[in-house]
């Protein structure tokens, strides 16, 4: 049997590139206004894209190829800030429920 000398792809590198691409995309479509917001969103989106890429892979049932890992991390990086905003609003609403209560 011929040994397979194909180098093992570095999935961490692929996920990092995808997450950074996703973070840049989210900055393109939703303007940050201050440097603090820019840094917070860039760091948060990149980390979330790297960490939660597996969610997209599982959710969409993609095969674990390099391109799918790249797409998954980019997707999660792009939507991470949006999802965090939604979660924050939901938690605030739950915290102030029922209406009028302190």
């Amino acid at each position: 049997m011929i040994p397979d000398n194909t180098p093992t792809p570095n999935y961490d590198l692929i996920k990092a590139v995808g997450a950074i691409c996703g973070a840049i995309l989210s900055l393109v479509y939703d303007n940050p206004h201050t440097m603090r917001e820019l840094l917070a969103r860039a760091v948060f989106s990149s980390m979330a894209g790297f960490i939660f890429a597996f969610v997209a892979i599982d959710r969409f049932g993609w095969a674990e190829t390099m391109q799918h890992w790249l797409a998954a991390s980019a997707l999660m990086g792009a939507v991470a800030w949006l999802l965090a905003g939604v979660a924050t609003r939901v938690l605030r609403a739950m915290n102030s429920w029922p209406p009028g209560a302190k």
Partner: protein
Amino acid sequence: MHWYHFALIGSAIIAGLMAGKTPRAWLWIAAMAASFAVSVTYLYLPGPWWLPQPGIAMMCDAVVFLAVREMGRDRWEIYGLGTLLMISVTLSLMQTAARIAGFPPQLPSEVYAIALEIINYLALILIGGVGLLDRIEASDVRLHFPRPARSAMDTIGNFAHRQTNQKTPFQNW
């Protein structure tokens, strides 16, 4: 290189010569040329790569767009050039998603390439047009135009060069 690459380079040089007196025009032409060069070079590199070519084009255009939004001041830059670049980013994003995930349906390569070329030419026409207006405004040539044409040029020039006063991160530390 093919004839359409040379045509685009020639158009960029002509637009640059027309916009020589317009602030930042050469900067945007250089940035778009660099973006074009990187994405075309990647397309012709040998070997399959794990990042599809539309993804590279998307990221290059996204970086140019962020630069325009950060350093641009006038309406023709933010609303004109910025909008064209955002359309280009969106088109490349859709093509990348189609290549990787199969959704939305993938455009034929020729249609995608022609759409990007059209966007590039529209951006060059915008830069060259604003540059030409600035040149006419700054010279005595404008006196040879009839009054309605001068009025229209003033209106368009004032609109194009009006400041947007947008807040950008690097100005708001």
